[in-house]
């Protein structure tokens, strides 16, 4: 379990990135931090592995204040996947995936075996192991990034807009893969995105932040739709534009779900 207690981040120039966040991330679930740029979602994420230290408040992992843990040791125990994969360009795919286990002192042979296994887990062909990042497509690079994040078998996986830079089709594919992985692995995933659809698709818990790093609402996707806290929330989730307001229509004896403008969204199963 990850717990934010009254966490604030203020920079020397006075900018407040995170403004007093209290939040609990339950174990073995996916929590999505969503918000516009400047809402402090990435800052909040990076406080978990001490890439950013809060100016006030504390972040606790299983009851331990992370401020008391050596940042290097902490980071090696937490998986991190970033936008643009962040792969080391001078190392092969295999070496990239092996990085953290080797830093942890795992023997080369077992690190290698584990890395090969992980490549398969994330749906990459073994023949890619000796390629360099520059030889892969954007989607493949992100898969390697996920494999690398999982390599040391961390309990926590931090994902900072990991699918932000790939094209929509590949993004959908990666989102589905992540759901499958999460079902298999059951990690505590904290995921940052500015895409509310992605948040609703992946999140067990969704946390909506707004400029100044304040939590506007948190809850399950269904709760967001059923009872948006205010106009900002309805605007963000699209409830006000009728995109989420669906109704039934009868077409050729089938019950078709349409949105407010009458555009079909799908067919209702009997």
């Amino acid at each position, binding site marked *: 379990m990850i717990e934010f207690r009254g966490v604030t981040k203020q920079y020397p120039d006075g900018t407040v990135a995170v403004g007093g966040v209290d939040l609990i991330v339950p174990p073995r679930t996916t929590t999505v931090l969503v918000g516009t740029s400047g809402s402090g979602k990435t800052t909040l994420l990076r406080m978990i592995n001490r890439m950013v230290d809060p100016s006030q408040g504390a972040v606790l992992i299983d009851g331990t204040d992370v401020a008391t843990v050596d940042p290097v040791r902490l980071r090696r125990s937490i998986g991190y996947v970033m936008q643009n994969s*962040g792969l080391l*360009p001078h190392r092969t795919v295999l070496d990239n995936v092996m990085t953290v286990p080797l830093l942890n002192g795992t023997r080369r042979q077992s690190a290698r075996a584990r890395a090969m296994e992980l490549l398969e887990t994330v749906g990459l062909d073994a023949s890619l192991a000796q390629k360099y990042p520059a030889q892969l497509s954007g989607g493949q690079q992100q898969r390697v990034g996920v494999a690398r994040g999982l390599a040391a078998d961390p309990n926590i996986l931090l994902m900072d807009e990991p699918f932000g830079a790939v094209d929509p089709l590949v993004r959908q594919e990666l989102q589905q893969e992540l759901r499958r992985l999460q079902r298999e692995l059951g990690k505590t995933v904290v995921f940052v995105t500015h895409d509310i659809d992605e948040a609703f698709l992946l999140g067990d818990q969704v946390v909506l932040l707004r400029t100044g790093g304040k939590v506007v609402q948190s809850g399950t996707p269904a709760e967001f739709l059923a009872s948006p806290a205010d106009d900002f929330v309805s605007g963000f989730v699209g409830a006000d534009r009728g995109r989420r307001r669906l109704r039934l229509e009868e077409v050729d004896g089938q019950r078709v779900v349409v949105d407010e403008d009458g555009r079909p969204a799908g067919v209702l199963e009997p």
Partner: protein
Amino acid sequence: MNLFAEAIAWLFGPDNWAGPSGITARLLQHLVVSAVVLVIAAVIALPVGGVIGHTGRGKQLAVMVSGGLRALPTLGVLTLFGLWLGIGLRAPVLALVILAIPPLLAGAYAGFESVDRRTIDAARAMGMRETQIVGKVELPIGLPIVVGGIRSAALQVIATAMLAAYLADVGLGRFIFEGLKTRDYAQMLGASLLVILLALVVDGAFALVQRLVTPTGVRLARSARTGGEPARKRTPARRTITEGNPV
């Protein structure tokens, strides 16, 4: 054309190569002086440049200092140091070190700076220590540019080490100063050709080193970015640092 032929004849005259003041001895002296200068300058400039490139701090100062050093006329500096330190190798070595520092410094910080900040951020987030980030990420990726700085410095030092003979009985420059006195223009031209050749050979050697230290993945990334040729073909690693603000 006659002078040129005479210079070639001087170069190939076996008598000119032998003895303590022959071409062989002078050539070796020239190389040793250049190497000593490069090592001293590298010990000073590379760590400083590395720290600047790693931290991103002090870059303005480095640009100013190397710009200032670059503006100094080496002959003037040499005369000044000669008056201070007297006859011998100390003054020319010092003057040449000052000449070599700017390109080394620029190469070092440009090399470290050339590494994508996101790559460094990812390395840190994975749990690399700062020393590991330097050793396993910044250095291997930036090394070709650092070597480019060394290459540029080596070229300048070898060419300018002719001036060592101004104050010491050392190096290929002796032939120039001697020839000037005795009006032996063939010898002067011959020695000049030799230095040019030496500089080209050393430059070529460093070009090779630069290519060897370019990691395959980095080369691939570069040619992918420029949308260019397949990576097997020749590397675009020929990169020399001559200006204060490269890349």
